[in-house]
């Protein structure tokens, strides 16, 4: 068996827990850390179940809406429509404006438009963060798993340090202190917000992604085809990228999905804390924040619930798919 | 009153009326236990019948996979909840217990029937003190006070031969040696004075030197308590001299059954002969080759037609492969066997010679003698080991 990254006992306990839960340990903000050993009894399902198709359906719908957002028959996300404020979803009364199935927000903007553009922002940030995490963390993990030795210890130590800080705090500090500087550079506050959050969340994702990449690399790098390639005189970098990496990628795809789900939630959490993209730019988190007071006074709870529902459904769908892929491909789960 | 107190205030006789003392304690008729698995129906026990009188010992002998453990669990009723098919009748003290629900079986477990398990290390709760594990059973079944239960536990421990019993009461299983753990297990099983004791490979996990002690202990306890015992083992040496009756199991069926003395001297089933033959004898010269039974037990999933031992039997003939032999009585009363060409008969000898000539059966020096003679001669009633 390859050496497990669970170096301390605490991590072993987290690993045990994750092995039992099969999902991200804390759906708050931390990206799946644990090393899941090959302990699952599940038979590998050949065909995707009903749930998987539901998940794909929702995500596909979301993707379509995001891509074709400008073509939607709704007003823009910042356009105010007079009389639309606080309108309930699916409102049939005489004083309701038709054509706004999801209702209106606090100042009269169409909820559908807000949500769709919010999806754009939220998913942009989430995906961007995952990419950043993989570019840095994945690279570090690959190198660590391949070269071993002191380089590996150093990288693992670095990842450990990043892990010692609570994830939310790390993301918060980076976002708060960086956002204005980025805005100076970029100009638009929305773009600045996007980039800062992407970067901050990406940094947060690095240690977990690094760990798991390393674990998967360890398994593949010990195989004989690597030794064979080396015997043929191939350069290390070539072996790493042409032989080992393609085998690691499928497992990482599952992790990428699960990380995306966690980071979407993280972005919303940061917005709630006031560290997200500054309003009036729409993100799912921002929409929640704007609508919160009208949840507590009961006038317009739909604002918060629609955005929350969007987050929940997306995360549920992603978790389901990520799990299904991981069951198939993650080396530590599959029976070799 | 809470159900617990209610239950306890009934006397033992009301709870479980004793049958007249002259009938058999246990009657098992055509018991079958099949497991439904993903690969099909596993016929672990496929039609076993016997009866057992009070105070007598029955030895059930068989290889791994013969179904002997499943049989003892089936009679006790300790099978998994789901995916189990049970047939046949089990009568304990003239009362049918085969189809009882666990709730009713619980009244029998511990107080009427006890079981000693194979591996005392895993069968004792590792995080519970030894004394507690004994008194737990006592307090549950008998209407006694806690201090009295502690006294009883102490007495039990000394009666099973554990030194310094008072100290042991407070120790954990891992602090005891293997032999002592098994004695504790016996104490637990005997605690409430059951009428029938199952000993499921009680000595397999122990050192050879300790094995005899444990078997002697079981025998002593049985005689003192007038308890019936079913001794399940794969080792013929264990039951030699300690069982009144022996049943040999193979592939889920009883292939030979009879009083111990008769079985050892006048076996009929080739499998029994081979089992006896395979025991290394003290009288053998050094470097004598071990006589093994070639081949492996059949899959219980899809048993082939005909006798189940046919693929490995040196006496096998065409008829054996085609038709399954029924259980037939032999000369002596109580002796039954299941074979078309039994050991010690002219048909059997002829079959063996035919096979030897054809090269199917190994020559005499390596395998069965053909008449049980050598097996008879070299097995004394004290057992081989």
């Amino acid at each position: 068996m390859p050496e497990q990254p669970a170096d301390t006992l605490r991590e072993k306990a987290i690993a045990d827990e994750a092995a039992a839960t099969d999902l991200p340990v804390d759906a708050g903000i931390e990206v799946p850390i644990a090393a899941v050993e090959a302990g699952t009894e599940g038979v590998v399902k050949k065909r995707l179940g009903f749930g998987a198709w539901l998940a794909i359906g929702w995500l596909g719908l979301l993707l379509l809406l995001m891509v074709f957002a400008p073509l939607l028959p709704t007003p823009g996300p910042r356009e105010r429509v007079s009389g639309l404020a606080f309108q309930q979803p699916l409102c049939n009364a005489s004083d309701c404006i038709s054509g706004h199935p999801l209702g209106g927000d606090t100042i009269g903007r169409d909820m559908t438009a807000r949500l769709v553009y919010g999806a754009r922002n939220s998913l942009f940030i989430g995906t961007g963060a995952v990419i950043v995490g993989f570019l840095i963390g994945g690279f570090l993990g690959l190198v660590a798993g391949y070269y071993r030795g002191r380089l590996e210890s150093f990288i693992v130590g670095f990842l450990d340090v990043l892990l010692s800080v609570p994830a939310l705090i790390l993301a918060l500090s980076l976002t708060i202190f960086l956002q204005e500087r980025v805005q100076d550079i970029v100009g638009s506050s929305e773009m600045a917000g996007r980039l800062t959050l992407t970067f901050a969340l990406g940094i947060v994702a690095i240690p977990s992604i690094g760990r798991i990449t390393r674990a998967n690399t360890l398994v593949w790098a010990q195989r004989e085809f690597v030794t064979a390639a080396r015997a043929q005189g191939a350069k290390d970098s070539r072996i790493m990228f042409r032989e080992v990496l393609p085998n690691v990628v499928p497992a990482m795809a599952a992790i990428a999905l699960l990380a995306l789900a966690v980071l979407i939630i993280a972005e919303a959490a940061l917005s709630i804390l006031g560290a997200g993209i500054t309003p009036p730019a729409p993100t799912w988190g921002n929409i929640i924040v704007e609508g919160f007071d009208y949840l507590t006074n009961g006038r317009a709870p739909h604002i918060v619930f629609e955005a929350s529902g969007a987050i929940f459904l997306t995360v549920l769908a992603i978790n389901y798919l990520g799990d299904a892929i991981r069951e198939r491909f993650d080396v530590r789960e599959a029976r070799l | 009153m809470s159900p617990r107190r209610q239950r306890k205030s009934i006397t033992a006789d009301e709870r479980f009326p004793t049958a007249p003392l002259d009938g058999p304690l246990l009657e098992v008729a055509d018991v079958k236990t099949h497991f439904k698995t993903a690969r099909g129906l596993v016929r672990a026990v496929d039609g076993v019948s016997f009866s057992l009188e009070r105070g007598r010992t029955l030895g059930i002998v068989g290889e791994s996979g013969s179904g002997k453990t499943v049989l003892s669990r089936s009679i006790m009723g300790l099978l998994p909840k789901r995916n189990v098919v049970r047939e046949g009748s089990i009568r304990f003290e003239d009362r049918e217990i085969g189809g009882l629900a666990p709730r009713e079986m619980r009244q029998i477990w511990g107080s009427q029937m006890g079981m000693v398990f194979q591996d005392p290390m895993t069968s004792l709760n590792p995080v519970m003190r030894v004394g507690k594990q004994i008194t737990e059973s006592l307090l549950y079944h008998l209407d006694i006070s806690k201090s009295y239960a502690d006294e009883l536990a102490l007495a039990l421990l000394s009666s099973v031969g554990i030194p310094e019993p008072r100290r042991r009461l407070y120790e954990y299983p891992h602090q005891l040696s293997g032999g002592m753990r098994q004695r504790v297990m016996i104490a637990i099983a005997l605690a409430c004075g059951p009428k029938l004791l199952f000993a499921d490979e009680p000595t397999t996990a122990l050192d050879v030197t300790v094995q005899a002690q444990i078997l002697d202990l079981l025998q002593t306890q049985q005689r003192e308590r007038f308890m019936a015992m079913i001794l399940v083992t794969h080792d013929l040496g264990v039951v030699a001299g300690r069982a009144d009756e022996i049943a040999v199991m193979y592939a889920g069926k009883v292939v030979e059954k009879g009083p111990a003395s008769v079985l050892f001297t006048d076996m009929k089933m080739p499998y029994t002969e081979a089992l006896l033959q395979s025991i290394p004898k003290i009288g053998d010269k050094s470097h004598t080759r071990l006589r093994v039974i070639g081949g492996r037990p059949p899959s219980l999933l899809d048993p082939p037609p005909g006798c189940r031992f046919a693929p490995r039997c040196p006496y096998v003939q065409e008829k054996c492969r085609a038709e399954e032999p029924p259980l037939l009585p032999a000369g002596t009363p109580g002796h039954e066997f299941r074979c078309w060409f039994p050991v010690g008969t002219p048909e059997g000898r002829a079959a063996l010679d035919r096979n030897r000539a054809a090269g199917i059966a190994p020559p005499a020096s390596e395998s069965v003698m053909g008449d049980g003679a050598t097996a008879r001669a070299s097995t004394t009633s004290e057992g081989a080991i």
Partner: protein
Amino acid sequence: MGEEARHRLLVWALVAIGVVGLVALVVVAPTGVTVAAVAALIAVAVVAFAGWRRLLQVVVVLVLVTFFVSVLIRLLPGDPTDAILGFSTPEQRADLRQELGLDDNIFSQYWDFLNDFLRGDTNYYQSSGQRAEGTPVWDRLGNALPVSLLLMFYAQVIALVIAIPLGILTAYRAGSRLDKSVNTGAFALIALPNFVLAYLLIYYLAVRRDFFPTQGYVPFGENASEHFRSLFLPALSLSAGLIAAYMRLLRSDMIQTLQEDFITMARSKGLTTRRILLRHALRPSSFTLLTVAAINLGALVGGVVVIEVIFQLPGVGLLLFQAINAKQYPALQTMIGIIAIVYVLANVVVDVLYSVLDPRIRHARAAG
């Protein structure tokens, strides 16, 4: 008593003394002394149970973390004092720059920061240009910390109370429809972010019906029942993810335990199912669960912050939130630093305790 029992007694006695001593210190001594004492105690414990190398690791991490925090303020564009002080004179701003060490190089700034930080000398500025007359950050945190800790503790309790019975039940009836539906529920619960659950609870239990207050906090001393009412919804929201995780963990652990031989043995003694489940099967499985619960205290930090903001509970999270809104960057630095350090230390302590209490590790060490 056996060797094992004596060892365990010793450890618990130490822990008890440590806790009592700490409480006494917190009450009696000024903040600095308490902090120094706690730090010393932790250092000793780490070296005793985990060796010098571990201590070095911890120190390195702490240095890096504080360095990172001290550098944060430099990330701000332009002159950060503008944002901090708002309306103020250039002299006041220059003073502040001097004080924050912004004109020096990074390392002397770090040194200054560390000094101020350890002495608890960082204050909460207000845009009037004056130092706030009010309480410095350390003290504010001291007031806020108990609230956050209580919230996390209640969340754990609720999670365990719900998860343990469910775990036992689904383990006993593994594979049944009940088991499958509970598992699906747990899956959904993990995907549900804690703030979404909070919104649902607020709306349906606090806004539509008046069972609980929407926001706000009542200390225990004031009114015990109101205290629990005010913390119930927040703790419940926090516990959601934990419930699912604990339930799954207990379930898988117990399923394995239930297959052990001693369970069959217990059945053969005639004991009731309930007794077997609770007295025999639960005990070995609960150890893992409790240690994971202890470890998870750290994982709750992110959730606590968000929940406090939503429910306006005066804990550390709300403090953070207020500092963010007021753009009080130095105060933020201190807060972030403190939180991070406490998190690191708490994890180290749990790690060390884990290795001490886990009998497997202890035996391995005794043998090797």
